[in-house]
């Protein structure tokens, strides 16, 4: 096991910059998820650690070694690929043994490791089969097994669940976490699925366009997003945003535009830090239908544009003005239809404010 350090790492493919001054410290035994939309550079970062791409600038350290120029086989890492990348002509056993044989490991040690991995992943009955005779989920487990038998210092996982159906994905998610807790190997996991990121990682690194937007434990990233992008990307259903004007009077701050007017008490200090407009972000679970107004900021009137039944809850998309929409979570028995006028309020203390120009967080009210 080992720590992995990205130190000002950049990667260019011709004129395209895939990764820009990327720095991240992953401690020994940690499970870190790199998450972002496609083209955010997360897979590039992973491939740089693997040695499948050469970096353009900066350093990558695994343990105490700078590995920039080491070939993949000398980096002591193992990788699980999105399409599993099993060797199609070999049996499951030979797939697992391949990386050990190339390292000239004694036969009995190879057998011992395969036996242990097969037991952990419940693939012992499949050892004689060829990959084409396995289901997607079984192939996935074999791919994990191939990484596991190597006892590497670092596991790299490149969207390993994206070819599985929804149910199997949830199961395997748990299984990968369980495996990590059992073996405790440092793991870097890449996904574009923020739910996967939130449920699996000790820490989440949110990336966009080759740069790191925010890194932190899942709760911190969810509750204190650093900017509009992270706030909108993390969380499902996603956060609603409205650009509002700011006026302050005495100790009060008023955020308003169109049909929205929110008065915030004791926010003098915050108002001073804001120049011009502010983007207000509200998560759906912090917007409620207006009953008697207790504790909520508002009321805000809007028209229900869509109503989605989620089972336990109902999601209402409410238009409050031109280009101004809020998602409101309501109980499933609320009598709201598309086209209805609704009145709702926002939880105080849960309104995220972002500078309209820089898009960076300025605080929460």
């Amino acid at each position: 096991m080992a720590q992995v350090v990205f130190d000002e790492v950049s990667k260019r493919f011709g004129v395209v910059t895939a990764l820009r001054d990327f720095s991240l410290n992953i401690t020994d035994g940690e499970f870190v998820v790199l998450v972002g939309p496609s083209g955010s550079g997360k897979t590039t970062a992973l491939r740089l650690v693997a040695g499948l791409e050469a970096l353009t600038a900066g350093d990558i350290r695994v343990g105490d070694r700078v590995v920039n120029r080491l070939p993949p086989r000398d980096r002591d890492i193992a990788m699980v690929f999105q399409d599993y990348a099993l060797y199609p002509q070999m049996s499951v056993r030979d797939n697992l043994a391949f990386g050990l044989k190339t390292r000239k490991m004694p036969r009995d040690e190879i057998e011992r490791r395969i036996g242990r991995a097969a037991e952990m992943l419940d693939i012992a009955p499949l050892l004689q089969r060829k990959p084409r005779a396995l289901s997607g989920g079984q192939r996935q487990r074999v791919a994990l097994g191939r990484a596991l038998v190597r006892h590497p210092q670092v596991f790299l996982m490149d969207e390993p669940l994206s070819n599985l159906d929804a149910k199997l994905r949830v199961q395997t998610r748990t299984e990968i976490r369980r495996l990590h807790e059992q073996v405790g190997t440092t793991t870097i996991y890449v996904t574009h699925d923020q739910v996967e990121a939130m449920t699996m990682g000790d820490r989440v690194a949110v990336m966009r366009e080759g740069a790191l937007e925010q890194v932190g434990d899942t709760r911190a990233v969810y509750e204190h997003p650093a900017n509009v992008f992270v706030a909108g990307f993390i969380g499902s259903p996603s956060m609603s945003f409205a650009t509002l004007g700011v006026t302050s009077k005495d100790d009060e701050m008023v955020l308003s535009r169109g049909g929205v007017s929110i008065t915030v008490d004791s926010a003098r200090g915050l108002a001073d830090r804001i120049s011009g407009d502010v983007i207000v972000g509200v998560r759906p679970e912090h917007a409620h239908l207006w009953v008697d107004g207790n504790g909520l900021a508002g009321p805000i009137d809007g028209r229900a544009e869509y109503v989605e039944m989620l089972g336990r809850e109902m999601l209402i998309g409410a238009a409050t003005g031109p280009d101004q929409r809020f998602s409101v979570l309501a109980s499933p028995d609320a009598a709201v239809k598309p086209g209805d006028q609704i009145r709702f309020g926002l939880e105080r203390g849960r309104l995220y404010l972002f500078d309209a120009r820089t898009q960076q967080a300025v605080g929460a009210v």
Partner: protein
Amino acid sequence: MNTASRTQVAINYALIVVCSLVAVYPLLGVILASLYPPGPGSAPSGFALPPSFDWHNYISAWNQGGFAASFTTSIIVAALMVPASVVLSILGGFAFATMRFRGSRAIFYLFILGLIIPTEATIVPLYYDVRAMGLLDTYWALILLETSGELAFGIFWMRAAFLSAPRSMLEAARIDGASSWRTLWQLLVPFARPAILTLTVLAFADSWNEFFLALVFTVNHMTAPASLASFSGRYTTNIPLVSAGAVMVAVPILVVFIIFQRQFMRGMLTGAVKG
């Protein structure tokens, strides 16, 4: 199945039948002609059945055409040329498919040139080279020239086959610590087995059918098709004997193709995926 696709199937079958007839017609003609009574007066024509089936034509043709010697030459040349050209094509195709090196594209196009330039265009300088090496009228002249001739296609073919292998499989092998050599022989060659078998059959056919090189470079080491030519020169009016010789020369290719038919077609199709 709806009516439109049924019509389509019918058209497909009609086309296949017409194409098969076009392919089979001359073959059948040659087989029938080979069974006519021998001699200058015998005049086989088209699909007319011979007055009597004269199987002796085959024995006469075998003896008079010296096929024992020329078949031996063809077998020796094919036995060395086919493995050599397949192995070298695998190595070359692997390099062009997986390795980045300076000038790789230019060198690859140079090999492709070999596909375009006909042997006839280079035969004269080639003759002087072979003579300078002292290889005139030897097996080696045929083996070396045929092998190098096969490489243009072989490398092109194997490169395409290796390029169709999933990139992640090769990357997994790199992480697993496999050397290029191990990656090639343990992963890519088994993966490209159908393409390799197809190349083997094609190389064998090319080697077996070699006519022009044998005619130019050998006197006492004629290949089977070349000896068929000299044979037909002497008995130019004896069509039944020439036909019997032609049928015998064609048999080995037919046998090889029948044995490897299924793999041959699979290789053709997988190779067609990526160029």
